[in-house]
């Protein structure tokens, strides 16, 4: 069936099988391979994207269910050469190693900061508790989110 999904601000219309998973729509149809997959049971969270602004596990959403909706992926974080603060935070604080869980982590943490500009350690840990990272032991991911929050606060102060 034909669907139109707006991904990172651009509307994409494709003919798809109803069973096509959103993660495969993004990766195979649109070649946006920054969103990964790591399990089949919605436990690992490396496939997290934002659907209408909320983090969801794209391995457990059908592409047809995203018809007419907005999806944001890791490719939609930076504005041109300008990194999103969450990307800057992960880079500054060594919040990634193999990089495989990183896009999903960043999409969740981006959504967290949009709701809560100054999360506590525990709030960050809860937010990412449905996502597995095998490399970092999470410590530097927590620091990365704090760093991103700080970057955003500093930018706000400049604006005011």
């Amino acid at each position: 069936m034909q669907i139109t999904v707006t991904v990172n601000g651009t509307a994409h219309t494709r003919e798809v099988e109803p069973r096509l998973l959103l993660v495969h729509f993004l990766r195979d149809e649109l070649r946006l391979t920054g969103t990964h997959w790591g399990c089949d049971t919605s436990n690992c969270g490396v496939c997290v994207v934002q659907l209408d602004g909320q983090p969801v596990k794209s391995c457990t959403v059908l592409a047809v269910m995203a018809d007419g909706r907005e999806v944001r992926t890791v490719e939609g974080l930076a504005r041109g050469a300008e990194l999103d603060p969450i990307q800057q935070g992960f880079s500054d604080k060594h919040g990634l190693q193999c990089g495989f869980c990183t896009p999903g982590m960043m999409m969740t943490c981006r959504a967290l900061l949009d709701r809560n500009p100054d999360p506590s350690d525990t709030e960050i840990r809860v937010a990412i508790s449905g996502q597995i990272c095998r490399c970092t032991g999470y410590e530097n991911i927590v620091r990365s989110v704090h760093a991103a929050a700080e970057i955003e606060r500093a930018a706000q102060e400049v604006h005011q």
Partner: protein
Amino acid sequence: MSTDTTGVAAPGTPPTEVAPTQVCASTPMGYGSMRRKEDARFIRGQGRYLDDIALPGMLHGAVLRSPFAHAKIVSIDTSAAEAHPKVKAVITGETLAGLGLAWMPTLSHDVQAVLATDKVRFQGQEVAFVVAEDRYSARDALALIEVDYEPLDAVIDARKALDEGAPVIRDDLDGRTDNHIFDWEAGDSAATDDVFANADVVASCDMLYPRVHPAPMETCGSIASMDPVTGKLTVYTTTQAPHAHRTIYALVAGLPEHKIQVISPDIGGGFGNKVGIYPGYVCAVVGTIVTGAPVKWVEDRSENLMATSFARDYHMHGEIASTKDGKLLGVRVKVLADHGAFNGTAQPSKMPAGLFHVFSGSYDMAAAHCAVTGVYTNKAPGGVAYACSFRITEAVYLIERLVDVLAHDQGWDPAELRMKNLLKPEQFPYTTALGWEYDSGDYPTTLQKALDIAGYAELRREQAAKRERGELMGIGIAFFTEAVGAGPRRTMDILGLGMADGAELRVHPTGKAVLRLSCMSQGQGHVTTFAQIVAEELGISPDDIEVVQGDTDQTPFGLGTYGSRSTPVSGAATAIVARKVRERAKIVAAAMLEVSPDDLEWEKGRFHVAGDPSASAAIADIAMAAHSDLELPEGVEGHLDATCVYNPPNLTYPCGAYICVVDVDKGTGQASVRRFIAVDDCGVRINPMIVEGQVHGGLADGVGMALMQLMAFDSDGNHLGASFMDYLLPTAMECPSWELGETVTPSPHHPIGAKGVGESATVGSPPAVVNAVLDAIGVRHADMPLTPAHVWRAMRGEPIRTDLAIG
């Protein structure tokens, strides 16, 4: 080797009070915490992992797997699958047998079925391979293959594998009448028995290091593409050891090695899961040969957990002897090693138990002995994987549990007992009772530092006060000695390939450089760290050094990244190759400055005339001159490059002291890690931020293995941890905020004094967590994982056998 390779100075080592994750404001000219170069791609979603690659005309493979642990294959009917409109080929064991590929050699002198022909020997074993136009159709076609199985009794409990009348798993092997694989010993049995006979105190304990899985977030996969015109096979694959893979493909498939290119793209974590060659990879190669199109195969998570490279599965009976005042005398252990249905452990070929025989640990002990028996069971093959440093995880767990068991029995403080017996700095280099030569370390300082950070005495007071109130908290200590950087060629090889690694460095005319390595990052940050080594040696900014890895057509031969060997081996090769370049640069600089090379002094990035710093040549100018018409002394080639193959003279021996603090809910048995203190000594730290990150990840592994990660089997051989719903990995909620410290004792034999660190925390942390939980509940021993149910049962004196189904 140039003359200055023996220096162990650590010019770039930052003072310990600098928070290691604080990156330098600008790129350091050498060692120091700097942002990783590779992250620019990863944070933009521009990593290029195996499944991200789409070749023109690429087909997709899927593997049909056995639902039974042990069954005869009566027949396979592929006709319906072949009739599927999108299916291009269906390959069975019979197809492969015709090509001589139904079986492949393992890394441990055994063979493994690529696709089963006679019978299946574990649940999840590969039975058929479908190649289709897209991944969904390939999966659909699996359901169309009819396999008629005749189920057989399975050997699931390793302790019964050698029983009289046990089903014989490997009847494919000539003359095989039982499930015995090998017996292997290390140490002096008689001397050890003698020590035990005369000891005041002996403590013994049965313990299981259960089967676990590395479970990197990216599963294993491969894309094989045969060019029908040139006959060149390109294999994109998730491998930690691209060169070893190429050689094995050449040996197995009989393809000429120069016509095989193995490319490892970005790897989404490896941890030992991506060392071996799996049947799916071979099937993809056969698939491309059969169809003439590139074939991609990527395992799903259940396939990953069921079929590729489990780790551990050591049933150990350990004993430790001491004097009545706590001087450790000896340790001995009998091991029953469950190797699964094929002996496919990946370790130095001459060592069937890997490096397990470092199990005398960090203590001064007169005698030690082990006897290891390997057995076949109806489970997946593997055993050496998951950041284990070739089974040092098992060794450290054994000794650190035994020390705690002894302390428990005698009412001794586990910190004092350890401190009393740790090797002293002046004892290094120290040759253990098992023949290892530990290179360097300051163990007492390392432990003391951990005790200080933890506030050990205060924690014990808190524990006592809580016990008064009926609350449970525990403090667990582990001290480990790692042995990494395999290894000296005379003792260590894999399939006859010596464990040396290469490096090639070329400085371009403009003074930028490219470094080519045989090792392969799976997230360890090679692109950054190895550039920093060159920067330290040559004064070229890490930003100006490209690091190339993972492509056999672009890199020198070497055995790859596992066993924490990249920095000890390839890091040494890199330092040496940079020093060779510096020697050449010195000759060129002498010609430029019209002086004798002997008159030149090196300061990072330039040579100057002794006594006249103004008469100097910077490395970039030297590089241009080396490529120019400048006349060089006779016999000196132009350009600025060098190669090196590094054959390690010894392993490096990192160490660490770990302290874990847990709280246990008495009513439910739930254990939570409140604090974790880790003081690591990995010698000179090239990028302290990356070192710290490596430690963090390994500590999470320890929490996971100690508390939740488990793959048990029911009596039919059904895998009870075959998805992430059942095989639980720790989340951010189970991990505390790690508290790290460091000591630095450089390796005396490594060119830059560095030791490996990638696996230290995975090796050292599980016993700390277990010791803490058992300390909390006052129980002598219970096996991992200490799930709430198991802790509750252990408190009641009815511990659970964790390798079998809970019944």
